[in-house]
């Protein structure tokens, strides 16, 4: 009995050592070790970890857990503070540095335009990849109002449409797809180098030997997605109606909360390539709802979807802009021109003086 188990145990141990050796000197050891840049948040699934930079070194997060350089919670005197809310298109995943995001470009354009106006401009990038209008709304209510913003730009439609089309079911609080952020720690069996090697696809991003790079942010905060049976025409109509209703009410609440707190709200539409599929239909309907709310509530509006339609030169995928003059910089210019045209910066500065 003993002699039967002893060789087995020694054999296992040797294989564990070989697997460990592979992790130490193999190709995994040569690449940079990624840091987890997200942490759970009880009210909006996840937030960025303050002071951490992503693996590529392109995006860093300040002490306020937001992309870009640090800023004080208390707004400096004679400053117009603008917060940009949204998902990855606001966070600007295509930007190669924090200074090439659309909010950073917007800040530069506005500073040049108002160089002699007697007040400063500060634009805060509050975009979080994956955030829907609901998460943006909660972020606005729970954290961004602490910064006393004067203007708030809401740039959400894409992720709301994605949540409506990538799951078999639908719930107005998006609990049909989102779950609390995790798992954040390795599973017990992942401490075995051999098992980690054999079952590499099932490991977590925090495996002690090799982070699983196949599990991305989407994998960490969603239940099973993408595996959707095509909906019948009537079900599609109903799903579109629901998605538009939910987005509409989040947008309406954003406008109401902004105004109740003395913040000027700005609404926007979003651009994506038109594949003629269900997703494109829902997105078009969501954009239409935002247009209607902006008109009805007399809110300043940037119709980005019409101002910058999808084209392969500026966009590198379905919806994300390239880091080039006719990409993110052009977006910054369009937003700056819209704000200047609507006179919201002057209006905010006047309010601030009062």
């Amino acid at each position: 009995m003993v002699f039967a188990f002893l060789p087995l145990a020694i054999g296992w141990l040797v294989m564990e050592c070989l697997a460990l050796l592979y992790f130490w000197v193999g190709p995994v050891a040569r690449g940079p070790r990624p840091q987890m840049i997200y942490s759970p948040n009880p009210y909006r699934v996840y937030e960025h970890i303050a002071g951490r930079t992503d693996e590529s070194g392109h995006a860093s997060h300040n002490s306020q857990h937001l992309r870009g350089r640090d800023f004080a919670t208390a707004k400096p005197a004679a400053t117009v503070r603008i917060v940009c809310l949204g998902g990855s298109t606001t966070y600007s995943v295509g930007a190669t540095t924090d200074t090439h995001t659309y909010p950073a470009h917007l800040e530069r354009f506005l500073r040049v335009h108002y160089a002699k106006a007697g007040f400063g401009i500060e634009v805060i990038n509050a975009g979080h990849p994956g955030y829907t209008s609901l998460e943006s709304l909660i972020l606005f209510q729970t954290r961004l109002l602490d910064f006393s913003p004067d203007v708030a730009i809401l740039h959400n439609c894409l992720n709301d449409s994605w949540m409506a089309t990538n799951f078999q079911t639908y719930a107005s609080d998006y609990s049909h797809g989102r779950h609390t952020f995790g798992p954040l720690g390795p599973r017990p069996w992942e401490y075995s180098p051999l098992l980690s090697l054999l079952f590499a696809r099932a490991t977590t991003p925090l495996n002690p030997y090799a982070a699983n790079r196949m599990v991305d942010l989407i994998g960490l905060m969603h239940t099973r997605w993408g595996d959707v049976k095509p909906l019948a025409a009537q079900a599609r109509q109903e799903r579109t109606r629901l998605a538009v209703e939910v987005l509409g009410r989040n947008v309406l609440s954003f406008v109401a909360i902004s105004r109740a707190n003395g913040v000027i709200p700005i609404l926007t539409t979003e651009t994506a390539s038109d594949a003629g599929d269900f997703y494109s239909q829902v997105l078009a309907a969501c954009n239409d709802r935002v247009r209607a709310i902006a008109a009805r509530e007399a809110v300043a509006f940037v119709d980005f979807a019409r101002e910058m339609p999808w084209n392969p030169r500026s966009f590198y995928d379905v919806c994300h802009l390239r880091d080039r003059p006719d990409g993110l910089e052009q977006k910054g210019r369009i937003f700056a021109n819209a704000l200047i045209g609507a006179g919201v910066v002057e209006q905010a500065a006047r309010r601030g003086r009062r």
Partner: protein
Amino acid sequence: MSPKTAISLPKRVTFTLVAVALAWLCVEMLVLVNLWLRPWAGGSDYPFLYAAHPYRAYAPVPNRTDRARQKSFNSLGLRGLEIAIRKPADTIRIVCLGGSTTFGDGATTDSTTYPARMERLLRGWYREAPFRIEVINAGVQSYNSLESLIYFQTRLLDLSPDIAIAHHALNDGWFMLEMFDFQSDFSTARRTFTLPPRKWWEYSPLLSCCFAVGSVTNPYYPARFVNLNTLILTNPMIAMDPRKGRNGEMEPQMVAAFERNTRSFVSIARANQIIPVLSTQTCFDDAPVGGRWIRAIERLNNVSRDIAASESVGLIDFARAMPWNPVDYYDPTHLRDTLGGLERQARLFAEGLIAMRAVEQVWERRHGKKSEVRG
């Protein structure tokens, strides 16, 4: 006489180990048998009644009833009877938001909470009216003003309510006074509902008997002394032992956070054609021991009063109408299930709504004419 046989060291070690192992096993068995034979002392319901939620930290699990059969959640996760998501025609729907004082911690059945009693009182008052009153208990134990606000935005608006009553101050006050490093989003104090993984030694009845008294996951001692706070706070020890808390005073930024949540509730309600109603909360008067709590809750109550006055929102000043007394309250904040307790709370709220003509306003708004409703 045969010479004494010498036992080799490995054998001695083996026999000792086997003897110790057998003894251990016997004790484990004895403890297990003892646990089986002992009458069931009950375990905490909370790990069974609540689950993690991506936007509200935790939420009631639909269609669950507690072991004592005192509280049950319907298919929408609300305490009380089943309701349709789509509001029936000619129904005026009132949602009651709040924490345990709305949920009805002291209520012995779902039909004796303050929202359930208020529904009966209002139905009695408007019995000849051409509409039906439906009151929804949207209180969730331990929810603060922020969590109720998110709940309101994400789920309760689906129910197309006509009137929404916010009943908050106590849980916000508790977070503000006792939790360290206050953040306006309560994120330093609140965490997503999580059951910790079971520790290896918790599989042993003997070790569990010795060490697992407060564990949530132990199969032999199932969380008998664990309350909800253990599962939803970053530092649950503060809930168990008040001496471990901050023991501070209310700071201006704390009051500002409560004000902002209350204002946003009013704005969201109005943006969705819902009549908002604010209310104050009653707290045990701790003036003889410094008055820290009564001062703090009064400051938050004053925020509700000020917003109600400045925004022309209906107010039910419950703190003044029903101050703390040892007959009606069974602890510093919760009412007994008696006529002078929860029934009186319901009557005060019903009278408040009747006095501000909230129900008539809804009817007038819906039908575009001066109401002929008679109570």
